[in-house]
């Protein structure tokens, strides 16, 4: 995971409102990506992000590492039982999806992967996002979610297994059944 946000100016302003707004401008995009991957739905992702930022705003004066706190709220709220009861993520089948910025990729794979992600449990999604998007170690993931590292390992294995089951065509992307997918940081993943 990236290091926490640091105020850009050498002498950050004293006004908490100004500092908060600077933080939001700098980190919303990254936080939004995590929220969207966790929920798979724009509206729920907006709600999740807003909840996390609202809690951060309330505690702003007491936070040393605001970004870590926001992410922690994002992930814990995403997997909380109460919030999951409120949310019913629809399985939306689309024929095509807008081309992502940065040029053409593999749209069919992305669509299949996005749909398969929605069918995972909230905890499985959170573990996958933390391990393979945020690039967290098992220990970091366990700390963030408040579970044991062994649980992270088993959840990762279950999640990847479920993805293979839901989308066999992703097998190449997801790697071996023992949980070592092909990523840009294979060696890093394989050794952790």
């Amino acid at each position, binding site marked *: 995971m990236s290091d926490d946000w640091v105020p850009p100016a050498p002498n950050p302003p004293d006004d908490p409102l100004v500092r908060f707004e600077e933080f*939001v401008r700098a980190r919303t995009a990254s936080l939004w990506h995590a929220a969207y991957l966790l929920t798979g739905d724009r509206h729920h992702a907006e709600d999740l992000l807003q909840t996390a930022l609202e809690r951060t705003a309330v505690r702003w004066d007491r936070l040393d590492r605001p970004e870590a706190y926001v992410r922690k709220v994002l992930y814990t709220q995403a997997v909380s039982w109460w919030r999951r009861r409120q949310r019913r993520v629809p399985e939306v089948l689309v024929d095509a999806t807008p081309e992502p910025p940065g040029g053409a990729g593999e749209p069919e794979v992305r669509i299949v992967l996005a749909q398969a992600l929605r069918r995972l449990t909230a905890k499985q999604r959170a573990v996958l996002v933390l391990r393979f998007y945020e690039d967290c170690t098992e220990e970091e993931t366990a700390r963030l979610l408040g579970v044991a590292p062994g649980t992270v390992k088993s959840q990762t294995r279950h999640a990847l297994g479920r993805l293979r089951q839901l989308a066999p065509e992703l097998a190449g992307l997801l790697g071996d059944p023992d949980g070592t997918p092909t990523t840009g940081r294979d060696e890093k993943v394989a050794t952790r």
Partner: protein
Amino acid sequence: MSLREHLRAIAETEPPPALPEGFFIRSRRRARRRRLAGTGLLAITVVAAGLVVPHGGGPAAVGAAAAPMLSELVGAGLGGPLGWALLAVLLVLLAVLWRELPGRSLLRRLATAAVVGSLLVLAAPPGTALWGEPRGRVGLPDRLAAPESWWSAAELQQSPPGPVALVYSGRATHGNLEEGRLVLLAADGDRYRILDVFSDPLEQLVHEELASTWPVLSPDGRLLSAGGYGVYDLVTGTQVNGPGWESVPRAWSADGKRLARATTDPSDGSQTGWQVQDLASGRTLRTIGYDEPGGGATVALSPDGARIAVEQSDRIAVYPVAGGEPVAWPRDGWRLGDSTAWSPDGRLLVMVRRAACVGCGQPTGPSEVRVVDVETGVTVTGGSFAPLAADVAIRVQGWRAPDQLVVQVGGAVEVFTLGRAAPSRLLTLPAGVSAIEIATSRLAAPLRPAEPATYGPPNLFLWLAVGVCGVPVLLAAATAWSIARRVRGRARRGGDAV
């Protein structure tokens, strides 16, 4: 592309949202409001718990310690206007606290909270009036409650009714296990409570030849004497103890300041005479011994407590409580009209003649009631009444006016007016009710239309039944839900086989 890159590409399909203006300030303001609402809710819960849970003198005693207007509001605990006010505040607070949930408008939340609150109130068992009971009514109801069963009514210890207007009992109130269940009616509203004792105190008069009689209620309806089960304060629901309350009061003065007790021989417990006691000071004012064996069971104090009329073998003797010789005259088989025989002006006494004890299986004849002069024992003009039906309970309730006395005659309460041979009906007792006693201070009250009866908060027996039956059902439902949830989760995870 790697998994990470695909995830990034998925995340970037949706542009990030813009936060609304003033997000920071509004968030902190909302948090402050939530803290305030939570503190208010906690405070109200603590106050409500303090009012509901009886302690020491009970919720009524707590209320009485406050200013009179406040005590009027809180005296009934949650069973009054305070309950409605708390419910309204609670619902509003819940709606405010709830507004942080996503996807719900404030109006919908308030409407849902109002519906849930209404359902809670409506779901209370009929007549329990969980959130309010009638109060402040004047007069006796023209009809008494007669539900199918009294098992769910609150007991007086659980929910004291306050001063009562009357008590009644009979086959309709006695359950299989509650041999002597008494029903109490509050003096200021159609609030009913029960007292479960093994032996019905009101049934004493039915077998009056076999047992002595005593008044069950004090003149103001605040105290209830359940014979050997003690004396209950109907405002606090507790028993009255202490010096002077070791034995059953056998008669009260109309002002409630003096009472008469039986004196007994410590060696064998047999009655040896009577004693008049001043309640405020606890002093014994006069002791009257039996002249000879065979003294009667009934005694009556004058309205001001200055004289006491006692049955003595073949005569009625009226003693001055301050001392001195009695005025006596032969009773000729007549008996004092219970402890409430004295007229309000202290000049007349009610006498009754019951042929035999009711329900004992012995042949009986018609009963009679008459009014005599206290000094001479002679029937006053207009003091003779037509003979009453045979084999019915006769219980003199007291005087409704200087020339009107109230008597239970079988299944009805009648008013006997001096100068009229036949009585007029005051109240018809429900079927299965065979005994009633009206507090003497309420006899002059007018009749009013009866309102829907309330029976207090759910009986403890009801809660026990709900717990015994409901807890296993809840446990089974929770277990089934937990199993179903695990099965669904296992199905989604797909196991370890892949």
